[in-house]
């Protein structure tokens, strides 16, 4: 059973983290381990209709952000990798420096030392030289950097379309199925599908939707 660590930190973009957790819940074979940093909790309540407690319920296991004794603090606890979404520039800097502050930073540190997959979804613009240097250093170590950037070639009609597309691209990074993904297949194909209703991923009945 794939086991994925999901970290959420205090960058803007909480709706994407929530949408990812909803999508992962639709994959019954995937076990999710969630850590929300202190400022992620604030951002969730600012940017989504959820409380942090409601988001915690979307994961199979949720840890407190300061719990350095959690299972995911050790490489002996096997996982298929970690995604941090949204990922703040402070978190990027902390991981780059190996400064395993808090459980998000420690779990990422472990994923790196175990040569497992680490995916960061930063939401920041513009990018300073410090940001770019840190992201470059991490990319050199094999970390995947997937900035929270909408695709436009699929003509998104709603914010939800933007988020669903990004969720599919995150699932792609872990080889997880994304059956509702809208994929680019050349201009001729794109022209023939313009205006056609797009498939929508299902939503759990008990979970409120992200704001449209």
């Amino acid at each position, binding site marked *: 059973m794939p086991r994925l660590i999901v970290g959420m930190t205090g960058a*803007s973009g*909480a709706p994407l983290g929530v949408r990812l957790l909803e999508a992962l819940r639709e994959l019954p074979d995937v076990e999710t381990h969630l850590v929300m940093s202190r400022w992620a909790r604030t951002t969730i309540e600012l*940017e989504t209709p959820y409380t942090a407690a409601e988001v915690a319920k979307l994961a199979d296991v949720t840890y407190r952000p300061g719990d350095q004794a959690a299972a995911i603090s050790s490489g002996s606890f096997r996982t298929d990798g970690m995604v941090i979404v949204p990922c703040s520039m402070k978190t990027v800097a902390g991981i780059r420096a190996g400064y395993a502050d808090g459980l998000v930073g420690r779990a990422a540190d472990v994923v790196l030392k175990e040569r497992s997959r680490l995916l960061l979804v930063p939401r920041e613009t*513009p990018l300073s030289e410090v940001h770019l240097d840190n992201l*470059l250093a991490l*990319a050199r170590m094999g970390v995947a950097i*997937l900035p929270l950037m909408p695709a*436009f070639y699929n003509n998104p009609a709603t*914010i939800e379309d933007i988020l669903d597309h990004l969720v599919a691209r995150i699932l792609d990074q872990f080889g997880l199925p994304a059956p509702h993904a809208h994929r680019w297949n050349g201009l001729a194909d794109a022209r023939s599908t313009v205006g056609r209703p797009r498939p929508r991923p299902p939503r759990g009945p008990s979970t409120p939707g992200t704001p*449209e």
Partner: protein
Amino acid sequence: MADQRNVTLAVTGAGGTRIARFVLEALLNDDRVGQVDLIVSAAGRKLIAHETGRAVGEAVELVLGGPAPKVVSWDPEDLAGGPTSGSYPSWGMLVVPCALGVVGRVAQGTANTLIERAADVTLKERRPLVLCVRDTPFSLIHLRNMTQVTEAGATVYPMIPTFYNAPNSVDEVYEEFTARLLGFIGLPQSDYYTYSGDKTPAHRDRVGR
């Protein structure tokens, strides 16, 4: 107006060409801008045509849907065009959207087209160069090139939305991005969201709690 500035706007073949229309309209509506030098790459033309459902045509008609007196259009293959020279008056250059291939060529100083040459000139003249990249994930090559152009004085400005303003539609994302981008280049706009912490009433209204 003596203090009006000329802004060079390049549109290249990355997704998000609709934002180029928002940016061009905002520049044209701004009295602080006297002229916009518009350069649309061949790939950019194809993408705009696709993303707007129009036929590939003249650059300005393609981006705006009609002509505009403040716009001077340049052929991207015209390496003798005004923006090839630092003597041509320009405040600086925006590339919206900016393909990562363009970032790579700018990083290497490869001035194969008027867009790359204009970016090269903007850097050598120490004028603002803002590259609104649109791609995800970033590869090591992308990040290295983006770091290099930043070291050379450019600003990498990814087309990433903000969520703290709780946007309700895709157009709100475009509008917010456009207003923030213009503010960044010293043309502050009045109608954008200013983050003011988690007690902001805008949040309550928009998220609906």
